[in-house]
């Protein structure tokens, strides 16, 4: 990987990366903080048989939801499939493999993957179907299940600001799954709302250091979509 991380747009940033069968780790929660420019590029590339690790799968017709409609995704690892009819239908029809992973376990599996920890024990899911087939262990009288770390070929990440060395700052609740997903991918591509030069970000305010980032570009955005606009009564 070259020391030059900055690319002009999603198409350039994805050159040489996209191929069938990739395992893709996606940041975002619902459609908040999702890498929409990169997702569009993946859709246009028509690569298929993808395994996608993401808390949700976008919504119908937007974000990762578009890759379901084009049937580019073979398997999802997620905690929640609601609010997405295509997801629920393809799963119930048997067209899509789905591994449910509880939300906190999913976040920790990716964090662990990026931190060189192969597995960990957690109380989450003990006594449920999530524990089926997993090793269990009693530690100080409490039962835990072993969850394995997740690593991927490619992390697709959205941040608010990023500099040319890949240092990132996220905005408000759009941070969500982006940092743990960024850490666990072999190659991490980031789209930012504002690409700034080195020195423009306060080192004390960096949320994710540039070591985790391989490629970065400034995305193009119109209006940010919202899943449920809920106003005070």
């Amino acid at each position: 990987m070259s020391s030059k991380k900055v690319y002009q747009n999603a198409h350039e940033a994805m050159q040489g990366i996209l191929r069938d069968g990739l395992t893709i780790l996606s940041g975002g929660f619902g459609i908040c903080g999702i890498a929409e420019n990169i997702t569009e590029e993946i859709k246009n590339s028509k690569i298929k048989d993808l395994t996608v690790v993401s808390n949700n799968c976008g919504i119908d017709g937007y974000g990762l939801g578009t890759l379901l409609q084009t049937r580019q995704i073979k398997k999802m690892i997620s905690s929640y499939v609601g609010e997405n009819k295509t997801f629920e239908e393809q799963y119930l029809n048997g067209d899509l493999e789905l591994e449910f992973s509880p939300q906190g376990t999913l976040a920790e599996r990716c964090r662990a993957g990026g931190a060189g920890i192969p597995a960990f024990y957690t109380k989450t899911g003990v006594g449920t179907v999530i524990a089926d087939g997993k090793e269990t262990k009693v530690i100080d009288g409490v039962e835990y299940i072993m969850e394995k770390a997740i690593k991927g070929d490619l992390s697709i990440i959205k941040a608010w600001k990023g500099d040319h060395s890949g240092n990132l700052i996220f905005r408000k609740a759009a941070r969500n799954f982006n940092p743990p997903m960024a850490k666990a991918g072999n190659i991490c591509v980031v789209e930012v709302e504002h690409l700034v030069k080195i020195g423009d970000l306060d080192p004390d305010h960096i949320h994710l250091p540039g070591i985790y980032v391989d490629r970065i570009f400034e995305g193009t955005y119109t209006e940010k979509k919202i899943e449920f606009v809920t106003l005070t009564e």
Partner: protein
Amino acid sequence: MPWTREEMCSIAAMELKDGYYCNLGIGMPTKVANYIPEGVNVTLQSENGMLGMGPFPKKNQVDADIINAGKQTITELPETSYFDSSDSFAMIRGGHIDLSILGALQVSEEGDLANWMIPGKMVKGMGGAMDLVAGVKKVLILMEHNAKDGQPKLLKKCTLPLTGKSVVNTVITDLGKFDILPNGVKINQAAPNVGIEEIRSRTEATIID
């Protein structure tokens, strides 16, 4: 007279003590925030990565980057902080959250909870519910006493896939407030003019005196 949904939320809000960090689930539990007694200061956590959740926004305050775990727009407060999802669940799993209020499809007399899927009918996923019930200090369930078809939801054993085993401490329904104890379910408070016989007839779980 069974409690209305508003009254159920208001009874649940009495469980929120001054200084608590709480996580409120999607749906009716979210509304409990509207009934927090005056003088009680509670910090609400949203598991996508926010501590210190404010009320829903006015139209001119809507920000696509400020949403709760139900993906609804909300507002921040002066004391709000943001963090990533792995930190968020470290708070939850690490026992730093005092109380979680969730909805339920079924609760058993041993405190088992089922609230994430109906095989063959409804698949939404567990989201953060399994982590919450495993890690939070106290779990309170807010649900109708019976399903729409009249079936009891407070059971001897859950028949639906579990969210957690022996995790529920208290259940508030339209008929009353119930404590899950080692030997069964104890009526802590009944709704006005709801007799113990009515509760027994509409409950499968063992009601103890």
